[in-house]
């Protein structure tokens, strides 16, 4: 047996569990859900082919079919959530990372404390707590009343504010991008700052001329990863709205509607179609981000 063949055999032996998992638990389900997207399927009977019907139901497509309003609404809600929570989270993470980059005695402790919301924020327990904070008789209103405010809304059951509480919950969990930014800030050579301050550049000028360009690949990377995961948010909306996406579908995230369609109404074909639409949305946005970043992101420091 020659060396090359032996090495290949050994390597693929190491890879076998992953390859099996990839084919059986990822690739096959992907194609299977692509097929199901063109069917009607309720688990009770075998799937029946319906062509593009699921997609036409979603988006409308003729004058008689207007599109699934709840679906279109969930797309709107999710976009609003993603495009407000992700930038806010990253800005906040960057500001805090710059604070955490200072030389202070207790900086280790501070970094740990500021990571706690991220550590706990994804749990059902915190979502339950959020419900109690933003209820009509919740913690926030108790505090606001103490300082003399009246006529306060029940944030969580008011369609105007409910999504806002979820955005706040997402922004509150800024810890991971903060740590990544912090690592990035420590990579920027100190000499750049020293040289520029000799040249008379102020702090703000330094931020835009040194810090932002230095961090741009990391900002971009964080943006894409946070976006991909924000599109898939589920638990918080589910718990805070009691599984309904309410009030008035104002917290009906895409994933939540997919879950309700697939596992509440047993419309597996429709849910599979939704999953593929989500995949396409994420793929298009990621590709777009990569294209735009070509002009904005500066790699390396050799210039």
């Amino acid at each position: 047996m020659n060396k090359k063949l032996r090495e290949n055999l050994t390597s693929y032996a190491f890879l076998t569990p992953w390859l099996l998992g990839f084919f059986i638990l990822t690739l096959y389900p992907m194609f299977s859900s692509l097929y199901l997207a063109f069917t009607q399927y309720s688990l009770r009977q075998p799937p029946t082919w319906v062509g593009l019907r699921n997609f036409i139901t979603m988006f409308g497509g003729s004058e008689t079919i207007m599109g699934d309003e709840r679906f279109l609404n969930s797309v709107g809600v999710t976009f609003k959530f993603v495009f407000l929570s992700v930038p806010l989270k990253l800005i906040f993470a960057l500001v805090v990372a710059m604070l955490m980059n200072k030389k202070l005695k207790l900086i280790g402790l501070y970094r740990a404390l500021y990571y706690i919301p991220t550590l706990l924020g994804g749990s059902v327990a915190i979502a339950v707590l959020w419900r109690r904070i933003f209820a009509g008789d919740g913690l926030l209103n108790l505090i606001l009343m103490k300082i003399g405010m009246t006529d306060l809304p029940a944030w969580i059951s008011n369609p105007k504010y409910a999504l806002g509480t979820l955005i706040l919950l997402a922004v509150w969990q800024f810890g991971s991008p903060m740590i990544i930014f912090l690592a990035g800030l420590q990579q920027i050579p100190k000499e750049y700052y020293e040289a520029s301050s000799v040249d008379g550049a102020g702090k703000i000028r330094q931020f835009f001329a040194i810090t932002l360009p230095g961090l741009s690949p990391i900002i971009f990377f964080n943006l894409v990863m946070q976006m991909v995961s924000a599109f898939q948010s589920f638990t918080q909306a589910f718990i805070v709205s009691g599984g309904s996406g309410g009030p008035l579908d104002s917290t009906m995230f895409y994933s939540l509607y997919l879950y309700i369609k697939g596992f509440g109404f047993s419309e597996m074909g429709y849910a599979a179609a939704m999953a593929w639409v989500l995949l396409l949305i994420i793929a298009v946005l990621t590709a777009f981000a990569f294209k735009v970043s070509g002009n904005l992101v500066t790699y390396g420091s050799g210039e």
Partner: protein
Amino acid sequence: MTLNAKEMTKSGLLNVFILVLGFAMLYPILWLIGASFKPSNMIFTDPGIFPTTVDLSNYSEGWKGIGIVNFGTFFRNSFTICLLSALGNVMFCSLTAYAFARLNFSGKRIWFAVMMLTLMLPAHVTTIPRYIMFRSFGWINTFLPIVVPKFFATDAFFIFLLVQFIRGLPKDLDESAYLDGCTKFGIFARIIMPLTTPAVISTVLFSFLWTWDDFFNQLLYLTSPNMYTVPMGLRLFLDASGKSSWGPMFAMSVLSLIPAFALFFSLQKYFVKGIATTGIKG
């Protein structure tokens, strides 16, 4: 002298600012902990942190759960799932990572790219067919749909984390072991794995915490209360409870956060390492 004093004031102000902001940010959690010791009705009236008397009845009341199943069962189920998931991820993601980081084989670049793509793949695309598959195996209401995928290294994040780490290890050790006649598996098990301990600890940590909070899959696959995990137990409690049971609800919420706290504060540096080496969310 004056410069020094100015510096001192500046760092003093910075400390105060960080502490005040941090306190505001952590207030909800502190309030939750305090409120779990208060009588239920106080949760609706008292915005302060500290309870006037320490009352443990919320904890004893909450622990009973919904009567037939108590929180002892929920905790046992959560721990079982999390430990098995961590074990699966450590064993099989490291095997995969070793191959990608150290071995040469045909198709390596393509497979690596495929692995990185699965990292970005939204889970929804596989959810429904997986559900149908696991249902046909009779796996509904068992831990298998949650645990078994981890034994097939489906969590690409950990493969990536371990690849990054193994790539950073010096090659001389495994080369000399190879010359001494050690097999590839021997090198993996006796040389690479012990050196990879920090990344393995990060893997255990994140596997544990993410599985603990993986509410979606638990909601999908666990259907009877005696199989419920802690998050599912909390949700059951939330649905079944009126105004009077917010105290017990808070008490159990606090308990459900303890494992994350304990892991974080005992193994803090591995958190930072795990997040910083991959540059991906934690």
